[in-house]
């Protein structure tokens, strides 16, 4: 026996084992005392085990059992040695640990002794269940570390899968904080929706809804008796639920918008052929999906599984192809808007509240695409205007400049949409009477007003329009001018003098765009489709104006 290593007693073995982490790792290791302990024990055990094996004292299969476990630990710890910046090395170690685990569970089945158990007597050892738990926990960590490594190696898809698996395991082995878990699942859903993986996204969100309900409610009966701590906790919980609601809103919005992209023609209207194609495609996929479901990573134990499924059933994960299906998704989204707004009220959470309102407006906008009746479409846009104007008037532009600009632009755009719809309706029904004309003109004026407000917001402290626009407002600003020009020329009036004034305004707008693009070539690049139209209009409109002038003279 090697005199340097004492015989395996109980405590003595533990205390005299060398445990020398390399310098510099001390910080990292100090964060994880459990790992440190394991490492120390491992070091001892390996030495002992090898010696014992040499002496033939141990059963063959026990040494296999524990050496594998220990190697698993070693690999996990390998990431610390490998250097926190050598990702490929870390990846190798961890993948090794992963395959070891898989091999072990397949070939051997029963959980191995947890490392420290080797030092304990029979009675003190863990129950099989507990042992199993700890063993699995180590593996969960391995998966979690792998997720990080893959992220650093820019292998996002793999990283996401490993995150998902980590979450699943946390539930399976009931080792989690419900609020934290729910938020993580909701965040992961957002990854899935950017990849158009709506089934997986829905699964994560539904699970989030179910798990957060496991978080304890207040213990005291009435709000008055609540302690400050309990109130804080309740507020926190409310906030987290509202955050999950916002993730749901994005789910519904993206599902509708992605569907629209597949269905629209080159002028943004429903393409009936594409609709047919999509219907057929979806039917085919439905059959495949049923099978795919089984291989997807499901969440939870048997109790939670049913609960999750019942939440999933409330909303589709399939692209809506027509108005009725779109409306179903819309309504789910709208419900979550209301839920989110309950917590994110304007008065304390301005930015969050406005983002929720903007999402609500976007829901209406995309629903309008699916709506065939123009009058009903108009009503949807009216709802948008009402909600956007309501928040806009509350904001102080000095502190919310950028948000105000967003709102101005969107409100103007919406008025424009409404105007176009009204014109189309009136023409179709042959009802271009004075009442409708007034309405149309009013809508055009409102759009012009908001586009102008946007342009005014770009002026400097001396109220002058900047010579050179910043890159992120360049195109929006020029587009404003372009649209204002168009709107002026669309105003309906029988008074030629007024018509002339309108045309004059129109020409000036187009000229502004042309002149600016001439001076700043990068603007020309950004305004490509619109610029040549402006150039044409700037030369054609004056001729039209001359004609009008003559008319005026004739009738005067």
């Amino acid at each position, binding site marked *: 026996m090697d005199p340097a290593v004492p015989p395996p007693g109980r405590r003595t073995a533990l205390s005299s084992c060398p445990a020398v982490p390399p*310098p510099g790792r001390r910080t*990292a290791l100090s*964060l994880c005392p459990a790992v440190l302990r394991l490492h120390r024990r491992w070091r001892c055990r390996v030495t002992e085990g090898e010696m014992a094996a040499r002496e033939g004292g141990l059963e063959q299969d026990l040494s296999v059992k524990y050496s594998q476990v220990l190697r698993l630990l070693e690999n996990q710890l390998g990431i610390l040695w490998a*250097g*926190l*910046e*050598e990702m490929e090395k870390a990846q190798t170690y961890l993948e090794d640990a992963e395959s070891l685990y898989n091999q072990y569970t397949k070939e051997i089945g029963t959980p191995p002794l947890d490392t420290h158990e080797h030092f304990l007597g029979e009675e003190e050892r863990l129950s099989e269940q507990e042992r199993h738990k700890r063993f699995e926990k180590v593996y969960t960590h391995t998966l*979690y570390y792998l*997720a*990080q490594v893959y*992220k650093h190696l820019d292998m*996002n898809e793999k990283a*996401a899968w490993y*995150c998902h698996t980590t979450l699943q395991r946390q539930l399976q082995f009931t080792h989690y904080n419900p609020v*934290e878990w729910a*938020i*993580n699942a*909701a*965040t*992961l859903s*957002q*990854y899935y*929706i*950017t990849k158009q993986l709506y089934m997986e996204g829905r699964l994560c969100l539904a699970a989030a809804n179910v798990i957060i309900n496991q978080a304890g409610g207040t213990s005291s009966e009435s709000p008055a008796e609540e302690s400050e701590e309990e109130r804080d906790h309740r507020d926190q919980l409310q906030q987290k639920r509202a*955050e*999950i609601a916002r*993730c749901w*809103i*994005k789910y519904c*919005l*993206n599902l509708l*918008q992605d569907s629209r992209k597949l269905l629209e023609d080159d002028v*943004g*209207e429903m393409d009936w052929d594409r609709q047919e194609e999509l219907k057929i495609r979806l039917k085919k996929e439905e059959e495949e999906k049923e099978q795919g479901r089984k291989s997807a990573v499901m969440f939870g134990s048997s109790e939670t599984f049913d609960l999750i499924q019942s939440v999933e059933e409330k909303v589709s994960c399939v692209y809506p192809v027509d108005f009725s299906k779109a409306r179903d998704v819309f309504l789910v989204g709208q419900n979550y808007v209301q839920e989110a707004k309950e917590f994110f009220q304007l*008065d*304390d*959470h*301005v*930015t969050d509240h406005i983002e929720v309102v903007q999402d609500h407006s976007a829901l209406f906008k995309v629903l309008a695409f699916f709506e065939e009746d123009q009058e009903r479409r108009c009503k949807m846009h009216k709802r948008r205007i009402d909600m956007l104007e309501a928040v806009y008037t509350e*904001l102080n532009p*000095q502190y*919310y*400049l*950028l948000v105000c600009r*967003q709102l101005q*632009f969107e409100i103007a755009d919406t008025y424009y949409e409404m105007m176009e719809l009204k014109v189309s309706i009136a023409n179709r029904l042959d009802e271009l009477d004075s009442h409708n004309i007034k309405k149309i003109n009013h809508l055009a004026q409102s759009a012009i007003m908001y586009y102008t407000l946007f342009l005014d917001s770009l002026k400097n402290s001396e109220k002058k329009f900047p010579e050179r626009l910043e890159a*992120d407002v360049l*195109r*929006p600003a020029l587009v404003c001018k372009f*649209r204002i020009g*168009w709107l002026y020329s669309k105003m309906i009036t029988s008074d030629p003098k007024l018509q002339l004034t309108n045309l004059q305004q129109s020409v000036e707008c187009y000229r502004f765009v042309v002149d600016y693009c001439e001076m700043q070539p990068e603007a020309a690049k950004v305004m490509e489709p*619109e610029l040549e*139209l402006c150039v044409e209009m700037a030369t*054609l409109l004056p*001729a039209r104006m001359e*004609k009008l*002038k*003559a008319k005026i*003279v*004739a009738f005067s």
Partner: protein
Amino acid sequence: MNGKEEAAGCERIVEMDVNLGQVSIRNPKGSPTELPKSFRFDAVYESSCRQSELYDETVRPLVDSVLQGFNGTVFAYGQTGTGKTYTMQGVWAEPEKRGIIPNSFEHIFTHISRSQDQQYLVRASYLEIYQEEIRDLLNKDENKKLELKEKPETGVYIKDLSSFVTKNVKEIEHVMNVGNQTRSVASTNMNEYSSRSHAIFVVTVECSELGLDGENHIRVGKLNLVDLAGSERQSKTGVQGERLKEATKINLSLSALGNVISALVDGKSTHIPYRDSKLTRLLEDSLGGNAKTIMVATIGPASCNYEESLITLRYANRTKNIKNKPRINEDPKDALLREFQEEIARLKAQLERRGMLSKKRRKSQRKIILEGEEIIDEGEETEDNIEKDMENYLKEQKETLEKEKVAIQDDHNLVAEEKQKLLEEKEKMMEDLKKEQEATEQLAAKFKVGQ
């Protein structure tokens, strides 16, 4: 480089080009062919620069705008020993060596003392953000955590943050000292404290002026002086590797799973349920929009500080490029473009019709109308054609006159008076031309009516 650095045998690896605004840093361990990395900034200052130079050139305009009622922020970032404290604080007692902070205070109160028709009120607050918790450095109850809230009228604010009215430089200096003391107590109690907490000193300047309308107009400007965390770099991680990567640590605790997941999400069309950092939210309107921002980054020239200097330069460079989140969402409106094209086609068609016909009969038409005597039977011609011809003719005349006008103006040989006279003549001719145009229009109109 200082004595210690020279003694240690470090070499100078940083070069500054003040004119270009460029800083270059050379890797001391790199191969001879490895190019130095350059960073461009709005202004760079050498160690030989005076405090007042820096202040007057870079900071003074920002404080001026605060006095006008706008917000301004000065960020300071840098390792100890690189002169960050000297730049920001300097030596208060010696006027020549005062840093940005005492100079700003001096600037503000001097301006106030010189003002005649305005009333000023200056308040000071001092807070810090540590591990996403906000603490009031001027409050004896150090453990109270403050909430960040927003009001639509006034923007982001910190609830229950104490502020003190200060009437002169001494008073505001005192406030700052009190806060600094609170901060240093905390740093002795906790390791790496000052390297992880951001400190923000806020000077609010309220100006009230009696306007022409007899009403009191109030404008409020805020000056944020931010000492950024992370300036004290931890002892090197022991990695002797040449590549310097930030934040690639594997987090051992499962509680960081959320960070890993949110790093996977592309923020554009999604909601990530983790709050924006408190620092960003608090200074949001400084990082974009109308407010002015200055980032002061200090680095050491010696080779032994290569890694830290590089980090500082990169950090400062990133800050320059911060784009604020709210972007204008533009709906392309292809339908509009199509309508536009149709309208243009329509207008063009109209013009061509007129254009074609007018070419043929131009000469004779013109003659007739000018003489005003005969009216020929035009047949297919419409009144548009006459007008179009007239237009073209007048246009040509106008153009010629314009050209002559320009020629006159450009002609340097002409004496001023002569020039003026000639220009007046040209003006008169333009007038006549105009009258002619009106006359022809009337004629054309009469003609129309007659038809």
